[in-house]
């Protein structure tokens, strides 16, 4: 009896102190992505840590063919959730998740009405930096936007590490609202512990008007951009 009372007192104390009873519960952002007709859409879900549009990219994952995604984040707080699917305008949403809790979101994506001004990924490549004995690999992306209004969302995802990156522009841009140039964007990846596996890498680009490129995944061979027929 005394033992039961002690356990109850301990549990009550933990609750009173605001400590989670289930220590170490994961903090998760999960969701489902669909079009207006309710069809699940595959794609990418990428997170900015902190305020949305701050361009501090953090975690990311692939959205499966069933439209579902799940991202475990190290701590609760505010994130900018961006969801992409080929042929659709991307969806940005500021979300807040509490530590140890799961946030479930529903994302609805609309097809791009036309692709004439959509950014195009012309080429992707992986280049070991010989001067540093393979410890560094440059991931490069050749990007072109027909109407010249690229923004900072030249993005890469390494699904093996779950890390999302904003790629560095060919020249330094101070103002993130400025039009970013066409050309080769790159990131420097630490490959001292493991080499890059190109199969793990996915790319997507969005411009200031929200026009969104198709997602480029392995084998990274660009194709004509998807045009989704709208049937209403």
């Amino acid at each position, binding site marked *: 009896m005394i033992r039961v009372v002690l356990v109850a007192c301990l549990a009550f104390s933990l609750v009173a102190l605001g400590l989670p009873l289930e220590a170490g519960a994961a903090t998760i952002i999960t969701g489902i992505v669909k079009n207006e007709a309710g069809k699940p859409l595959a794609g990418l879900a990428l997170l900015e840590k902190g305020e*949305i*549009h*701050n361009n501090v990219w953090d975690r990311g994952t692939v959205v499966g063919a069933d439209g579902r995604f799940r991202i475990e984040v190290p701590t609760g707080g505010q994130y*900018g959730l961006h969801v992409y699917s080929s042929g659709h*305008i991307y969806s940005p949403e500021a979300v807040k998740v509490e530590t140890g809790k799961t946030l479930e979101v529903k994302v609805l994506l609309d097809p791009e009405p036309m692709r*004439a001004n959509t950014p195009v990924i012309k080429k992707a490549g992986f280049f070991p930096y010989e001067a540093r004995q393979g410890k560094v690999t440059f991931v490069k992306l050749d990007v072109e936007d027909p109407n010249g209004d690229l923004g*900072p969302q030249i993005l890469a995802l390494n699904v093996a590490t779950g890390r999302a990156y904003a790629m560095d522009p060919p020249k330094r841009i101070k103002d993130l609202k400025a039009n970013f140039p066409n050309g080769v964007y790159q990131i420097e990846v630490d490959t001292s512990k493991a080499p890059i596996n190109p199969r793990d890498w996915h790319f997507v680009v969005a411009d200031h008007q929200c*026009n969104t490129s198709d997602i480029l995944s392995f084998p990274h061979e660009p194709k004509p951009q998807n045009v989704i027929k709208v049937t209403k």
Partner: protein
Amino acid sequence: MMPATAEDDLQALVAEGELLWTRSADPGNPVACATCHRDPAKTRGWAASFPKFKPLPPPHSRVMTLLQANAEAVERHYRLHDPLPAATAITAFLTAQGAGVPISPGISDGQPIFPARMEQLAVSVGRGGRLYANRCGQCHHASTVAPSLTAFPRVVSGRVESLEGFLERHQSLGHSLTWDGPAIGDLMAYLASQMAGRPVGLPTYRASQEAREGS
């Protein structure tokens, strides 16, 4: 034929805003406001939630009025050299859509509340209060001016006017303000803080049934 009344003019402005909301003014890029923000249940609370902290790429994030936020979006998405007329019409449309919703600066119904944004809004309200005291307080008591927030945008003698534009032109102490500047955002944040809980928009504001309830 009956001459157009001020109410007719206002309804025409709301209708123009609804058109701009649903169709892009940029023929090269038909992505319109409603392409992404098409659910009236979500946008109905927007007018009531401004001024609020608007997240934009650094360093552009700041507290904005609804008109300022619309102008920023219209400039970026519709590529208009002068975003003010379109932004004013869209502001009138969103005000009509949200007419009657209790004013709640920084908080949109159904959206999470972000403490960092609320802190920025509180700082803006503080700045706005000091600005008001220095520029306006000698002639106008804030409690009598604040209700005018719900009367804009308006049409006077056929001329469309936003509160931001009115404040830009209004003679007051100190340097002049610009309609799209942060100082007017602060000033209106201060006035809105005194209006919390009061309904958005004058009774003359009406959006179409489709805009209010969705198609």
